[in-house]
């Protein structure tokens, strides 16, 4: 596919400033501004701003044009395919945006008497119920503002629960080597020691290694199932029995739920705690990095440990319950990120009980892609070569790299040149020269064929003229960027202050 991204030479907002200040957007009225100014004269001048801040004074059309040009040099799921593995970049239905941006939600104050917000609370309560049903858990809370925050809540629940049982010696959390980096990071944040478990050839958690690692000190295991390799953990029941037999708990990372949605449930597999990324499986948009929303779901025995407050119902009244007996406390102030949650509520309203279709088509898409791509030279699957994938597949360009010098990164940049966002690269770390590809249910066969053809074309080029691929990308707003310069202490520039300093110093 031919692709030409917009290439505005758009200055920084600071550089749009001119000597003649514009009249800027006003929210301060004369009467109160004058009063405020008087008050300021009575304040110790030490803390009063004398000048600045150094923020340009621009007119409204100038600001709008600036940011609109920046949007033209950005790429989201509405522009084209974003097959980032484990990120579940599915279509974000417009109806969800449209309805969730209602100003009865946007302007709703978190300390307003619940009586005035019954409709909103009913939606949140209903979503909690639906998520419990989808995961096979007993109680769900929408409190965590993102997946990683849900993980922190989860490992803290493990910690407090075990402490209450008197198991203070349990200080180890087991994590498969292919897990998302958030798992070991979250476990460490809660003060646990992390023990890594390798995968076997079929891509399952290596049971022998697991048996050897499990001990009295095991507090629990963090698993995503299907794994980041897109493979279902075939011996999940054995894993569950083993961990439980040592008094440990099972934590489910919901990042990859899309592959089994409506087909199998973590609660039935023996998991005690589940977090969900509503911005992945449940179609809330990613916003260029956030906001997301995490939900955390637990089995009955752990319900008293959930972060507070919870949305509950008494008769026909919905309210926030702060009396969570052994609550781990607050992961965030107020009640979590409710706007993405409302979008997920709308998404589930639309699909209803037929949600299984999502997983079936997502998995069909993955396997269709895998079947075609593994025929290409230079590409390998490493783990579980003969197995079907679920939501995603990881391919390795190790052979291509060895034979042509073209790396996974070069291939990624060449995809950009064809108008295709690259998949997740170099992850999981256990697969060399990896591309982790996830299409979700949102991509058509036609688009997947385009991606396959792009890979074909790139691999062919790698064997014919590898040097040319090193020059990619050419059709994006800028060419390949200098990573070393970006990270070197002498050239590091994380804000405009640095840009100015360097310009002055030449």
């Amino acid at each position, binding site marked *: 596919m031919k692709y030409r991204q917009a290439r505005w030479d758009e200055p920084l907002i600071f550089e749009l400033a001119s000597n003649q200040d514009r009249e800027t957007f006003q929210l301060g009225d004369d009467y109160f501004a004058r009063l405020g100014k008087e008050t300021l004269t009575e304040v110790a001048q030490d803390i009063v701003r004398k000048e600045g801040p150094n923020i340009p004074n621009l007119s409204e059309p100038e600001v709008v044009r600036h940011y609109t040009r920046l949007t033209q040099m950005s790429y989201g799921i509405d522009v084209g395919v974003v097959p980032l593995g484990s990120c579940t970049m599915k279509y974000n239905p417009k109806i969800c945006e449209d309805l969730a941006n209602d*100003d009865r*939600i946007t302007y709703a104050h978190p300390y307003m008497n619940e009586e005035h917000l019954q409709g909103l609370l*009913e939606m949140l309560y209903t979503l909690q119920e639906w998520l419990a049903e989808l995961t096979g858990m007993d109680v769900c809370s929408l409190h965590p503002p993102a997946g990683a925050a849900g993980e922190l809540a989860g490992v803290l629940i493990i910690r407090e629960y075990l402490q209450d049982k008197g198991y203070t010696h349990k200080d180890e959390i087991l994590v498969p080597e292919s897990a998302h980096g958030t798992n070991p990071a979250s476990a460490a944040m809660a003060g646990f020691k992390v023990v890594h478990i390798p995968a076997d050839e079929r891509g399952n958690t290596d049971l022998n290694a697991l048996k050897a690692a499990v001990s009295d000190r095991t507090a629990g295991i963090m698993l995503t199932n299907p794994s980041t390799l897109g493979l279902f953990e075939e011996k999940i029941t054995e894993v569950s029995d083993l961990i439980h037999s040592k008094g440990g708990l099972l934590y489910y990372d919901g990042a990859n739920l899309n592959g089994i949605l409506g*087909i199998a449930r973590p609660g039935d597999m023996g998991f005690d705690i589940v977090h969900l990324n509503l911005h992945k499986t449940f179609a809330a948009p990613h916003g260029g*990095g956030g906001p997301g929303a995490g939900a955390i779901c637990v089995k009955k025995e752990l319900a008293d440990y959930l972060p507070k407050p919870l949305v509950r119902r008494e008769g026909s009244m919905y309210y926030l319950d702060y009396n969570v007996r052994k609550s781990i406390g607050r992961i965030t102030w107020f009640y979590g*990120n409710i706007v993405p949650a409302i979008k997920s509520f709308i998404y589930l309203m639309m699909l209803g009980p037929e949600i299984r279709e999502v997983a079936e088509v997502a998995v*069909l898409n993955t396997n269709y892609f895998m079947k075609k791509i593994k025929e290409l030279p230079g590409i390998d699957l490493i783990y579980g070569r003969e197995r079907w994938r679920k939501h995603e597949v990881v391919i390795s360009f190790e052979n291509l790299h060895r034979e042509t010098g073209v790396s996974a990164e070069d291939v990624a940049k060449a995809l950009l040149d064809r108008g295709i966002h690259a998949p997740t690269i170099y992850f999981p770390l256990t697969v060399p020269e990896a591309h982790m590809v996830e299409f979700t249910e949102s991509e058509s066969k036609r688009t997947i064929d385009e991606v396959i053809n792009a890979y074909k074309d790139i691999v062919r080029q790698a064997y014919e003229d590898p040097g040319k691929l090193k020059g990619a990308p050419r059709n994006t707003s800028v060419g390949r960027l200098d990573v070393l310069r970006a990270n070197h202490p002498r050239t590091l520039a994380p804000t405009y202050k640095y840009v100015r300093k360097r310009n002055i110093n030449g």
Partner: protein
Amino acid sequence: MPHYWIPNSVKEVKQEMLKEIGVDDIEEFFKDIPEQLRLKKELRVGFGKPLLEHEVRRKFLEMLSKNKFTGFTDAHRVFLGGGVCVHYIPSVVKAIVSRAEFYTAYTPYQPEINQGILQAFFEYQSLMAELYGVDIVNASMYNVSTAAAEAVRMALRVKRGRKRILVASSAHPEIKEVIRTWVKGLNVRLEEIPYGREDGELDVSALRTKLSDDVAAVYVESPNFFGVIERKLRDIIEVTHDVGALAIVNANPLSLGVFKGPGELGADIVVGDAQPLGVGLNYGGPSAGILGIQDRRELLRQLPGRLVGMTKTVDGSENGFMLILQTREQHIRRERATSNITTNSGLEAIAAAVYVSLLGAKGLRRLGEALLGRTTYFLETLRKRDVEAVPLFEKGLYFREVTISFKGRDARDVISQLEKHGIHVGPPLSKFYDVMHDCSLLCLTELHSKDDIDELVSKLALVLGGEAG
């Protein structure tokens, strides 16, 4: 079932794809899931069946109309405070964050195809750095409560071995709770520093006696939970530095149009919440947490979250932007990462950048003055009309929020009386403390006109006694 969000859900397409794979049935892909784990029943999700878009719209609006709160048309009667308040969201901000190139993007891991959003993040970082008087601001945390918790964790890493954290007692009670939760497992002690009974400001001499070389950081807010500006911020920071501890200051960005950025006064780490910057209340979330630091190596190495930097193309011909210093982050450093944060609040950060760009230094100063003018006016009017309500801290300098004492009357009762008149005030301090039952917070923003404030005072007079006006 075919669905119009799912292109390949059409039977013929499925069959064609299955044929090319060489499989008869989609079920084949799920055979590695143990039989007893495969769901046989239909799940109770949604309202019995899939709904069409117009049906969903109707159902949704029916549910939402159960809210008595009517949205913007009610906002000027909402004087609720407690860290977040009603603020206007300019149409420009809504227009930009509604651009799908931004809101449907992922984290810009492929910089060449996402220069626009990277530049927007860079501008957010830069604009916040100017406002807060620091050198570096990251690409956002979830909100100020988690930014504060991450700042404390960061300080504990920078000052390894120090096991005490001093927190202003006047800090937001929920932020204190968040910090407490996030340091579980670190074996540290959180201690509170009292505030002055007359001015509501941190008691510097009490701070001095608590400080010693085992303190990693001091956390203070300005304006604090009571709405009071810390006028001795420079002293607080100085005594903190005297024992080698770090000063973490949480400031409201709207106050920084008129007050100096905490970084300028010497704070090592600054935090704030982008909520008033065109983000909206959203019933408490999402928002964006501002987290900034001074240009010091030990701080930068421990900074959590994403950071965008300016660089050049490999051939040196053009400037560009990309995520930098990623070796601090969880996907590379794993259990040794500075934090587990991945998803942040990118879109809200962009909203904040657009808001600040739109108002400019001029607009921010004027808004800051006008907010200060409102608390001045409100307190004066209360006094003039002899209303039985006074600021809890007689000598405090209030910004945006005011703590009012109803002189012995139960605040919950006063609040529910006002609600009957359609006016929302609160939260009562008894929500957070066992004392101060007669006190409540109250917030005044640009959405409250002089008439609205007069009306508030009249209703207070009616409920409490005083000239109804």
